[in-house]
Every structure is written in C-alpha cells, then in structure tokens.
C-alpha cells in the first residue's frame, strides 16, 4: 500500500497529494498531523465516494486509510 507523508504541509497540499495517490490506485494511507488536513482529506474521500478510516499513531499523528 502506498503511504503519503503529508505532515507539516500547508493547505491544500495534503489533499493534493491524496488526490494524486488515489488516482494512481487505492488503497492509500496518508499520514497527517493536524485536524485541518484530516478534515479536508476525509471530505475529499467522501465526495469521491471512497471509504476512509482514521487511527492515531504512536507519535500522535493520524493515519488515514482510503480504500
């Protein structure tokens, strides 16, 4: 599975990287470290009709899985 590290990037780069990764094929994992990026990516997944789930990593970041 492809993993995108979108931590620390300004808007809208996390969504853009997600979009590019999803176009190359799902499932995709995206690592984010702020709730703005998390919300934007989940909204993107929802509007694309993809399912997404989140879990907290040991470092306190959020790993989003889109499939």
């Amino acid at each position, binding site marked *: 599975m492809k993993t995108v590290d979108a*931590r*620390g*990037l*300004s*808007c*809208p*780069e996390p*969504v*853009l990287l997600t*979009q590019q990764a999803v176009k190359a094929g799902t499932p995709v994992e995206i690592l984010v*470290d*702020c*709730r*703005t990026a998390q*919300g*934007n990516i989940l*909204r*993107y997944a*929802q*509007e694309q009709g993809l399912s997404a789930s989140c879990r907290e990593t040991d470092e306190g970041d959020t790993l989003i899985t889109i499939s």
Partner: protein
Amino acid sequence: MNWKERLWIVAAGLITGAAAIVLVVLGNPSNMGFCIACFLRDIAGAVGLHRAAAVQYIRPEIIGLVLGATVMAAARKEFRVRGGSAPAQRFVLGFFVMVGALVFLGCPLRMVIRLGGGDLNALVALVGFAAGIFVGTLLLKGGFSLQRNQKQRVIEGAVMPGISVALLVLLVAAPAFLFFSTEGPGSMRAPIAAALVAGLAVGALAQRTRLCMVGGMRDAMMFRDFHLLLGFAGIFLAVLVGNLMGGTFNLGFEGQPVAHTDALWNFLSMALVGLGSVMLGGCPLRQLILAGSGNSDSTVAVLGMVVGAAFCHNFGLASSTSGTTLAGRVAVVIGFAVAAVIALANMRKEK
C-alpha cells in the same frame, strides 16, 4: 458530519457579514466592518511604523480575531505550535500580499464586503483575485511547496497572542507616544468593546470552520470542493442584505467609499493578493487565525504584512480614493516578479 460542517461554515460567513455591517453602523468606515489589510495598516500607523495621519489606530478587531482563534483552538485542543516552513519567504509573500491589498484598498474579506455594498470595482477585483488563485493552483499542481513545518516550543506559538494582548493594553491605556488618527478612516471606529467582541466571535468561528477567502475558490478549482466557498457566500449574503435593509446599498463604480475606479489595477493588485495567498496557504484573515492558533509561520507572514503596510504608506504605494500611484503600480509588478522567483525556487521534484 457533512451537513453539520456545512451549517457551521455558512453560519460563520453569515455572522462575519452581519458583524461587518454592525461595526459600520457603530462607527467603522463604510464597507470596512472588517478589513485585515486596512486594520493591520492602521496598527502599523498607530505604533509609528508609518506617519500617514489618516490611518493610525490600534484596531480591536484584529486583537479579537487573533485571541478568539487562540481561545477556540485551545478549547478544541487544536493549539499546535508549528513553524519553520520557509519563514523568510513567507514574510516576503506577506509583504507583497499587503502591497496588492493596499493598491486595491482592501483584503479579500473587504473585497467581499465591498461587493455586498454594491461596489462594482470589487467585482473587477474579484475576477483578478480568481485569476491569481488559478495561477496559484497551477503552481501547486506543478509541485510548489514551501516545505514542511516542524514542532516548536509553546512560547513560539504564544508570540502572536502575546502581541495581541500587548496591543490591547496599549489601546486601553492609550499612552501619548501612540498615534491615533483624529480625521480620516483611522478616526472612524466602532467602540472598543464592540469591535473586540466582534473580532473575538469571528476569530473563534473562523478557527472552528477554517473560513478562508482564498481557500474557497482554490478548493473549488482544484478539487471541485465548494465547502469554503459557502463561507464566502454567507459573508456576501449577510452584507448584501444588511446594506439593502440599511439603505446603504449603492450599485456602481463611482463614488464608492474608500475605493478607486482604476479597473486594470484593481484586477492586477488582487491577482497578486490571490496568488500570494495561495502560496502562503490562506488569505490574510486565515493567516491571522493560524497565527493565533500556534502557527509561527503565519505569525511571520502577518509581520510581513505589517511591514508591507508601513512601506506602502511611507513610500506612496498605497492607493487613495483618487486612484493608484505609479509607485504602487510598480510595486505590484515587482510583487509578481518576486512571487515568480519564490515559485520557481520551491518546485518539488517528482519522486
């Protein structure tokens, strides 16, 4: 979750627009209930960074916006201290965003507010703004990035809220060394408490909803995501209704308050604001909100805007109701050149 978030962003827009109307009724200049660019410029003047006597005042709205965001971010456990993503370049971009805004005479938020007052010069500016954002989206798609931010110590994120508290103390104490306008736009002000409360409310809502004038069009262009545009539309609607109800709606180009009719430069200056804001990751309002939420890169961008405002009035770059200046037009062109250099120097290579 979706409809609830939509409700929040629409409400944030409507309340921001309504607050803008109320602030004008209470004394702010016409179509200037809120203007991040104008108000930062007024603050720069109040502390003597420029000596344009008509535009000097410590605007409580700015203090409220920052501290409202701080409180909301803390309450939602979203006060995260981050920074180190090309701060010097963000300072420069903030500087030129301010140059563009003061050649147009308003930040993107005031552009929407002017539009709601019937000022068609703002419509020309809106087209320019969209064009600038479009160029910015092409850069992003081409791999533009100012690189990642990093975790920083809490004190770094406390700088902008700290500055805001210091400004509030200065405003209330009003020591003699400050400059407060006695005539012109800087002398037109809503009472301190009302302006502060309006700023706090809008700041908190903007933090909660990520309200951003640039983000709406950018996300619509890039992802067909119209979420943030709902906030933009909410502001416009509330201001439009408020002006119609109050009899202050005045459709046209001529004789608009704190505005000029130079269409080409309204277009180009706001194109620069749109482009620069996309490169920064958000409009001037959003930069203030992020700065209040622990983002020290946005703090640096805001400081760049303050210095930009001082330059604009020290060296005659800022427009007036009689039009743009040669220096201002040259500065906008230089702004595009600087943005191009920063863009080219920050293109990510495909892995």
